[in-house]
Every structure is written in structure tokens, then in C-alpha cells.
């Protein structure tokens, strides 16, 4: 009962904040609402007994991603005047509607299997086993990490001039 109430509260919070992120005019507030969205997703994880994932969600998404987005926004001008009213409004609407339809269709048509097992009490140790244990996922994770690092370095190289100075003008 309590879990159901919590789920609906979090779900409504998620959807409202997500819509506000997209529709709001003030980008700074939109970024803050994005943090709220991440936070409510963390709440959903908690309901699913994925406590480790929830904490990491807050740490990475609220504590790092949202804050870096805010940093980028703070360094720009006309934050309050920006908005969704640009020339890509109609195409964006169409494509997002298509995406929603596809998602809804796939969710409804998938035969979801409900595991008979009780959820793990402590997920952290199990995650550690999966990651570092025998036949763990450490290699794919490392490969993904190296890929992300390479893309970060690429971004730096793109904005850096040949003689080592930062471009500005």
C-alpha cells in the first residue's frame, strides 16, 4: 500500500518535472527541474529495492551531471529568455510523439516476466560480485570508460587551437 502511494507520487513528480524541463522558458530552472527529475528517478529505484543504484543516481546525476549542466548554463547569457519556441518546435513535437508511441507500444507488447524470487536484501555485494567476480562485467565497463574518456579528450581537442591556446573571440 505504502509502496504504491510512493510509486504514484514519484511517477507524477517525474512526469511533471520532465514536462517542465522541456516546456519551461527559463533554462536555469529547467536544469534544476532536471535535477529534481533525477532525484525522483532515484526514489523509483528505492521502491525497486535498488538502493545502491539510487545512491549512485543521486551522486552522479544530481551531484555531478545536473551541476555541470548548471555550470554550462551559468556561463551563458539570456538564460531567462530562452525557450522552446524555436523553429524546430514542430519537428521536435512530431519526433517525440513518434518516440512515445514506439515506447508505449513496445512496453505494452512485451510479455514482461515477473521473477518469483524475493528481491535481494543487499544489492551492493551482489553488484560487486557481478562486476569483479568470476566472469564479471569489469572488461566491458572499462572499455566503456575508456570510450567516454576518449570522447572527453576529443571534445577538449576540438576547442583547443594548435599552439595550445584556447580559442575565444
Amino acid at each position: 500500500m505504502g509502496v504504491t502511494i510512493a510509486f504514484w507520487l514519484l511517477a507524477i513528480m517525474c512526469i511533471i518535472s520532465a514536462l517542465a524541463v522541456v516546456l519551461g522558458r527559463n533554462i536555469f530552472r529547467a536544469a534544476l527541474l532536471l535535477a529534481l527529475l533525477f532525484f525522483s528517478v532515484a526514489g523509483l529505484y528505492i521502491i525497486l529495492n535498488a538502493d545502491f543504484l539510487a545512491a549512485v543516481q543521486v551522486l552522479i546525476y544530481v551531484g555531478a551531471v545536473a551541476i555541470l549542466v548548471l555550470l554550462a548554463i551559468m556561463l551563458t547569457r539570456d538564460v531567462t529568455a530562452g525557450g522552446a519556441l524555436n523553429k524546430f518546435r514542430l519537428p521536435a513535437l512530431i519526433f517525440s510523439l513518434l518516440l512515445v508511441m514506439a515506447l508505449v507500444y513496445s512496453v505494452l507488447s512485451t510479455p514482461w516476466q515477473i521473477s518469483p524470487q524475493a528481491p535481494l536484501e543487499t544489492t551492493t555485494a551482489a553488484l560487486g560480485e557481478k562486476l569483479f567476480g568470476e566472469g564479471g562485467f569489469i572488461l566491458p565497463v572499462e572499455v566503456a570508460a575508456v570510450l567516454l574518456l576518449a570522447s572527453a579528450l576529443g571534445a577538449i581537442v576540438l576547442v583547443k587551437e594548435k599552439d595550445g591556446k584556447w580559442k575565444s573571440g
Partner: protein
Amino acid sequence: MVLRTEPFILNMGPQHPSTHGVFRMRLTLDGEVVVDLEPVFGYLHRSMDKISETRTYQQIIPLTDRCLDYLASMSNNLSYVLAVEKLADIKVPERAEYLRVIMAEMMRISSHLMAVGFMLNDMGAFFTPLMYMFREREKLLDLFEMVSGQRLNYNYMRIGGVSQDVPEEFLPALKRFVQEMPHFIDEYDQLLAENEILLARSKGVGVLPADLAVNSSASGPVLRASGVKWDIRRGDPYSIYDRFAFDIPTGTAGDVYDRYRVRIQEMRESVRILEQAIAQLPGGLHRARVPYLLRPPVGEVYGRIEAPRGELGFYLVSDGSIAPYRLHVRGPSFLNLTALRDMVVGWKVADVVVILGSIDIVMGEVDR
């Protein structure tokens, strides 16, 4: 790919905790890096030069207390009375000369204590060094109170001498202070001089090269920290400074750290001068007989001294009346600010306040 950026303009001051009064710097920033600096001043202008033209020569002395460097009133008094005495050719009694030197050197210690303390405070050392330095400054202020009855604006010097002889409890107290002071200066050194953060914040920061220092007519500790051995007490001796043995501490790099070290060393030298002056102090009159309404002969004169902040000069033009025809002050704080932009550009916002603190300005003197 080119990122289009635009400058970030920050008005530091006139209301700011560490601009030493009502100084305003219009900083153009690139991130935290200062790209340009435009000093704006005049918020404290009280028109000292013009007011002086309507005062008699004696009446100007209290003005020099208030309208100039209020942290070194004795030095302002001294510079002014020296100029007037030069103009009117007045002979000052021996005892008065010694008392003047004692006062000026005490003032230098007191002023340098404030300068170093506030510079460390600007660096973020949350008042602790400042409070330690205030402890000694307090003793000096007590001594000044003994001789003049005032703690900030002393109005002690007179044309032809000093306003009154020192009370008998003054000399023992001064002797005790002179004995204790080297120990306290060591204590300041121990407190922070070799601190890693202080070194990182001050070494190499805000370098003023010697040629630029000379060209921008900087003076005082700012000039000497750049390695120029120029002290008016030695280079153009006034009063009786040629009778004392003292060294002129100089820096090498001309950075914030050197200015800090030079001030600490100068305090030691001032203590040396005080020791000698106390030992040699003669008896006799403390003041020559000078008419109250002094009418100096027609002419002009420039009298200068080595004030704590640098060369403090008074340019006086007399038309033979009881008031100067023109009075101009060469304030060291103002002229030391000339090179501020060259020192600051390229450093961070946090360095701006430290560099400004190391120049040690008093807005009363900058704006006059």
C-alpha cells in the same frame, strides 16, 4: 571550432571588504583571470589642497592628520612642517629633532604592522596575524596618546618643533617597547613567514619589475621590494637621519612576498633607529620660537620625507601672506597605485586583493 565569448565585468568596490576604503576597481575577467583593470577613485575626496589655501600655516597641521594617510599622521605632520621650515628657514632645536625622528619611526612600525596584518587578512588568514599585530600597535598608540593626547590624529608636530615635550613616563615605556619588539617581530615571522600557503599565494605574484617601478614613480617599500635601494632617509637626508646607522632592506623579485619581507625588515631597522635615538636624546627646548601667524618669504619649496608608504612630499608656494598660495601633496599611496594594472593583469580575482594589500594604500591619501 571557435567559442565566442564575451568579457565579464566585475565592479570591485567601492563597497568591498578588502579594497582598503572606498577604492573601486573595474575588473574585466576571463573566468577568474583578470584581463583588464581600471582603477576608479575620488570617492573620498575632501579637497585638502584647496582647503589649505584658506588656513594659516599652523592650522594646516591638523588637516594633514585627517585628510592624508590617517594611519601615519605623525609622518604627514613631519613632512609638512619640514617643508614649512625649509620655506621660512627655521632652525629646530636638537631635542625636537630627536623627538620627531622617534615619532616618525614609531609611526613607521605602527603603519607597517597594519599593512602586513591587513595584507595577510586579504590573503584570508582570518584576522589572527592582524590581531597579533594590533597588540603591538596598541602599545604604540598608547605611547602616542601619552605625548599628544590622541590615538589616531596626533597633531603633535609644530612648525619649529613639537607641540609639547614628552611626559616622563614616556621614555621608560618606549624603552621597554624597543626591547620587546624584536621578539614580537620574530613571532610574526614564525606565525606565517614560511607557511606553504602564504608562499604559494605571494611568491612570484604581482611582480613589479624594477624599471617599471622607477618609471611609474613608485616609492617606499613597493619600490625597494623591486630591488631599488632608494630611501630618502639615506638618499636625501632630512632632519637628523644622517646620524643613525640603519640598513635599507630591499627585495629581489618585486613580488608580494618581497613587499611583505621588506616591511618586516623595515620594522627591525626602525627599532634600531629608535634605540639609537633614545640613547642620544639630548635635553633642551622642544620647540623654537615661531610666530603663530607665520609669514614665510615669497617663494616655493618642496619638502619630502620617507613616510611608511613611500615618498611623502609637500609642495608649498608662499605669496608672503599667512596662508600658502598653493599646497600640493605628493601622496605615495596614490603614486604607488600607478602600476597596479601592470601588476594585476593575468592574475586571479583572489590575487587582486592581495596585490592591492601589498601596495598598502590608504584611501585618505589617494583621494585627499
